[in-house]
């Protein structure tokens, strides 16, 4: 699937949904699904393209969410400004994490990223004067585009879709540009890349910082859409794992992978929770078990992720009527 047509189909379908569907529950699902896809794609910039697997990206997501929420509630600034401030803060933190990636490799880097997100969790839940502590921050609804107070979910779909397409284009750039090829070399073998004149350290820092900033943008929009920021959710390891999991399931280091992966796990999770998550006797947690088994099966069948798996199938059996 080197072509972009599957992505065009995917995004076009998403854009068509609000025209046909009026159901608020479905639209809500679509918005969150697209947001998780965008966040996974932001993670993919560092984890997939630069090969710097982070399990602390919730830190950047939370920074974006808190920046938008706090600037909005305390100083009544526009969430758009909050979004930019969040992205700037995340860029700075991303540079620090990126610098660490030049000292720590493999599992040590992963541990450092988890630790970083946990430090932010402690700060956000204890620094009551700034963040209201563990109670979380409700985001006030102020109608208007500038204040992102949009009641119509269909508008939200298109708003998030703009972000989604932007992220997809960034991934395409990373697939086909000079910098993208150089990052691939760093991911494959850093020393060999250095020996060929690739400025590996600088590229890694830039990729991680960009990934952090984009994740913060997703966090800011999410906070604005959901309307409440809970430190134990936005800084959780669970959330970090979700970004990573969606990307790996969909196809790490592929432009469309994160979106497919996020679609898959979000729908699966929602469906299972709706059907098996009832409070009926003795099956409170059963949906998690089914969910876990489903993930294992998917990784067994398509260890490289959905996008490479589908691509391989298409190559092996070309559709009738196509030129050989």
């Amino acid at each position, binding site marked *: 699937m080197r072509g972009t047509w599957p992505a065009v189909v995917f995004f076009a379908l998403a854009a068509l949904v609000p025209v046909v569907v009026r159901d608020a529950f479905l639209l809500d699902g679509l918005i969150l699904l697209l947001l998780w896809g965008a966040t996974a794609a932001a993670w993919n910039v560092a984890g997939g393209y630069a090969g710097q697997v982070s399990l602390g990206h919730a830190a950047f997501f939370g920074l974006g969410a808190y920046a938008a929420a706090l600037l909005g509630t305390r100083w009544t600034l526009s969430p758009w400004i909050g979004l930019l401030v969040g992205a700037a803060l995340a860029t700075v933190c991303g540079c620090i994490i990126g610098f660490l990636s030049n000292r720590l490799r493999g599992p040590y880097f992963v541990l450092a990223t988890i630790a970083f997100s946990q430090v932010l969790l402690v700060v956000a839940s204890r620094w009551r004067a700034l963040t209201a502590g563990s109670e979380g921050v409700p985001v006030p609804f102020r109608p208007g585009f500038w204040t992102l107070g949009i009641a119509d979910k269909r508008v939200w779909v298109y708003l998030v879709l703009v972000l989604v397409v932007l992220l997809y284009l960034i991934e395409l750039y990373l697939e*086909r540009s*000079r910098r993208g090829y150089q990052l691939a070399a760093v991911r494959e*073998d850093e020393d060999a*890349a*250095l020996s*060929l*004149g690739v400025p590996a350290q600088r590229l890694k820092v830039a990729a991680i910082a960009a990934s952090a900033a984009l994740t913060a943008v997703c966090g800011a929009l999410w906070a604005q859409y959901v309307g409440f920021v809970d430190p134990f959710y936005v800084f959780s390891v669970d959330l970090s794992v979700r970004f990573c999991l969606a990307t790996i399931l969909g196809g790490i280091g592929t432009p469309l992978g994160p979106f497919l992966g996020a679609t898959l796990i979000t729908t699966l999770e929602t469906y299972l929770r709706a059907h098996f998550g009832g409070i009926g006797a003795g099956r409170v947690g059963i949906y998690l078990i089914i969910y876990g088994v489903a993930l294992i099966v998917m990784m067994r069948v398509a260890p490289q992720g959905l996008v490479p798996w589908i691509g391989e199938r298409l190559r092996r059996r070309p559709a009738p009527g196509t030129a050989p």
Partner: protein
Amino acid sequence: MSRLSVSGITKRFGGITANRDISFDVAPGELVGIIGPNGSGKSTLFEVISGFSRPDAGEVRLDGGRLTGLPPDRVCRLGVARTFQKLRPFAGLTVVDNVMIGALTRTRDVRHARTRARDLLDRVGLAEKADAPARTLSTGQRKRLELARALATEPQVLLLDEVTGGVDQRSIPGLVQLVRDLHRDGLTLLVIEHNMRVITAVAQRILALYLGEKIADGPPDTVTRDRRVVEAYLGQAYAQ
């Protein structure tokens, strides 16, 4: 003036001195062979010249400019390329993409880099493998790939670590011819080689290292007859 100048390089690892006060100059267009038994410090010397390892003393200069202390990617961009003894292709990328990454150090244009990469693959005899994943190549083909990749960075000086090591006998003449051609085209080469027949055939001058020290430096027939070199290789019994 010399193209590459190595002066007083000493490199220690804990209690072991891998390079002790090694100095030599390489003239532009010269092909210098480096020989020595295992553990004599040949690869360490390459690590130091290419910037992967910092020496404890001494310095390396390229056309008079200091290389020592610069990171390896800078050293490459300044014009010193290397291959690795233990081959390191980008296994997940295609052969042509491997070479392209070298070419992208000199050009910003991806298409131009791809054309350059294909030309170089043609030159090293890997053209028909261009679109295969690098992991599918044999050892001999990997050597060629590393050579093409290094050449793509348009070096002034090329450091080759074991051109024929681990390569099947039939591929050796082709690789040797390739090195000869590069030399004829004016490239300055430093070649580590275990195969004496190969090195005496291509090199104008040979450096011999033993236990981290330079023990001989001169034309191939002089060096291979040098008493200390023969001792180092075969033991004292054969030196009489």
